[in-house]
C-alpha cells in the first residue's frame, strides 16, 4: 500500500445504496497530504458519487434524518461526528433504517 495515500471504504446499506448507483461498497483513495473529515467526505460524496437528488442524502451540511453513520461499526455519535478525521483503512458506513415488515 502506498503510504502517501489515504485509502478507506465507504459502504451503503438499508436502501442508502439506491442513492449511489445501487453500489454498496466504494473504495476511496485520496492524497494523504490533505486531512479528510466525515463532513468533508459528505460533500465529496454528494458532488461525485450521488446519483439521485441531494436532499435524499443530505440536509444542510449533514446526513438527512433516518440515516445512521458508522465508523468501523460504531455509531458516529460516539465519535466526533462531522469532525471525525478519517484514518487509513477506516470503513465509513451509511445505513438507512428499514421500516418494512
Amino acid at each position: 500500500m502506498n503510504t502517501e495515500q489515504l485509502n478507506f471504504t465507504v459502504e451503503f446499506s438499508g436502501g442508502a445504496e439506491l442513492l449511489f448507483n445501487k453500489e454498496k461498497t466504494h473504495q476511496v483513495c485520496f492524497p494523504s497530504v490533505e486531512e479528510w473529515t466525515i463532513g468533508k467526505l459528505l460533500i465529496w460524496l454528494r458532488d461525485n458519487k450521488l446519483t439521485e437528488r441531494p436532499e435524499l442524502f443530505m440536509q444542510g451540511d449533514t446526513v438527512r434524518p433516518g440515516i445512521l453513520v458508522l465508523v468501523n461499526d460504531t455509531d458516529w455519535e460516539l465519535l466526533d461526528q462531522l469532525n471525525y478525521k478519517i484514518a487509513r483503512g477506516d470503513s465509513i458506513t451509511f445505513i438507512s433504517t428499514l421500516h418494512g415488515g
Partner: protein
Amino acid sequence: MNKQLEIDNLLQSKEREIAELKNLLDQKNEEIEQLRKSRIKYPSDGVIESDALSKDDIERYSRQMIVPAIGVDGQKRLKKASVLVVGCGGLGCPAAQYMAGCGIGRIGLVDYDVVERSNLHRQLLHAEFNLGVPKVTSLAQALLRLNSSLKIDEYNVQLSSANALEIFAKYDIIVDASDNVATRYLVNDAAVLSGRPLVSGGAVGCEGQLTVYNYKDGPCYRCLFPEPPPPETVSNCSDVGVVGPVPGCIGVLQALQVIHIITEKGEVASGKLLLFDGVSFTFRSIRLRGKSPTCKICGSEPTITQLMDYEQFCGSPANDKDSGLNILDASERVSPVFLEQAIAKKLPLLLIDVRSPVEFEMCRLPESTNIPLKLLNKEETVDQLKEMWATVAGNQNAESRVYLVCRRGNDSQLGVRRVQNILKCQVFDVKGGLHAWSRDVDPSFPIY
C-alpha cells in the same frame, strides 16, 4: 356449458363440506379447551407438578429447559410472561411462532389488515384458506394449533394514539413487527410512556435489522432518530419487495430477544443494532449511542408526555399501502374500459407502461411498451419517445393518443406531465392502473 355447471355444483358442495368440517373443528377445539380448563382446576390425580409447570409443560419444554440460557426458572418466567406483537406479517408470524413454541403464556396480536395472496410467500402462518380473513384471527388459529395451552388475544384494529397505551399496559414486552414509519414512532412512544422494552425488527428487500429500545438505560427509537425521514426516502415491502427468509430470520431473532429479556440470562441487543445482509450473507453487530439526555420522550426533561398524531408527524400514512395520488384534471384521465375500447377499435395509440422493468416482465398488456418513470426525463428516452410517437401518429396526428399505465395509477399521473412536456399531443393516464384493469376489464390479469 353443462360440464361447467357440473363443476360449479361440485365446487359448491365441496365448499359446504369444508364449512361443516370447520364448524366441527371449532366445536372440538372448544370441547378440548373446556376439558383442559377443568383439568387445571383439579390437578389432584396423582401427578406431581412443580409449582408452576405441569406434566405437559415439562414434557413439552424439557429440551429447552435443559439449556442453561433458559433453565427451569426461565421456563416458569416464560409461562408467566405476556408479549404484544404489533403487526402480524413477515416479522410478526415468525416472532409469534417461536414465542408460542417456547411457551410464552400470553401473546397479544395487533393488526387491522386481512390476509392477501401477496403475503403468503413470507407470512408463513397464514394459510391459503384464510385469504380475506383478518390476520390476527388467522395467526391466532395457527398459534393455537402449535400450542393450545396459550392465551392469545386478538386486536383486529389499527394501533393508534387512542388505543395504544391501553393495549400496551396489559403486556410486559412489546415486539415491533410493523411496516411503516408512523407506526414505529407510535409504538416507540407508547412503549416509553408505558415503561415497556421494545424489540424492534425491520426488513425490506434482502436486508434486515434488529435492535431493542427502551431497555433499562438503553436508547429509544427517538434517541437514534429524533426526526422522521422524508417520506419519499422510505421504501416498503409493497414497492421494493422482500425475500421471505429475511424477515423470517429477523422475526425469529426477535423472539429470541424476547426470551432473553424475560429470562434475564442472554445478552439483550440494547444499544446495539444487528444488520443482516441476505445478498452478501453477512451479519454485523454495530455499537449504537446510549440514551440521549435530550431525547424528547425518554430524556431527562421530556417534552412529549402523551401520544400525538403520528401520520402528521411523519407526513405519511400508518400503513404500507400507496395513497391515491390525484394531480391530473379529470379530462386527462380515462378508465380502463375506455382504453380497452380504444384498443379494440384499433385507434392509433401509444400505450406506455411506466413500471419498473421487472414488474413489466412479470405481467403487462400486450399493446404496451415499457418506459420506467425514472427514465422518462433522460435525454436518450426523449428521442426514443419522439420516434415511437412519430411511428404511431404518422399523418393522422389529430386522432392519435398517448396513454400511460402503471400498477395503481399514481406513477402514470406523474408520467403524463412529463410526456406532455416532451410530445405536444394528447396524453392520458389510465385511472387506477392495472389493478383497475384487472377489476373492470380482465379479471385474469394479476393483481400484485
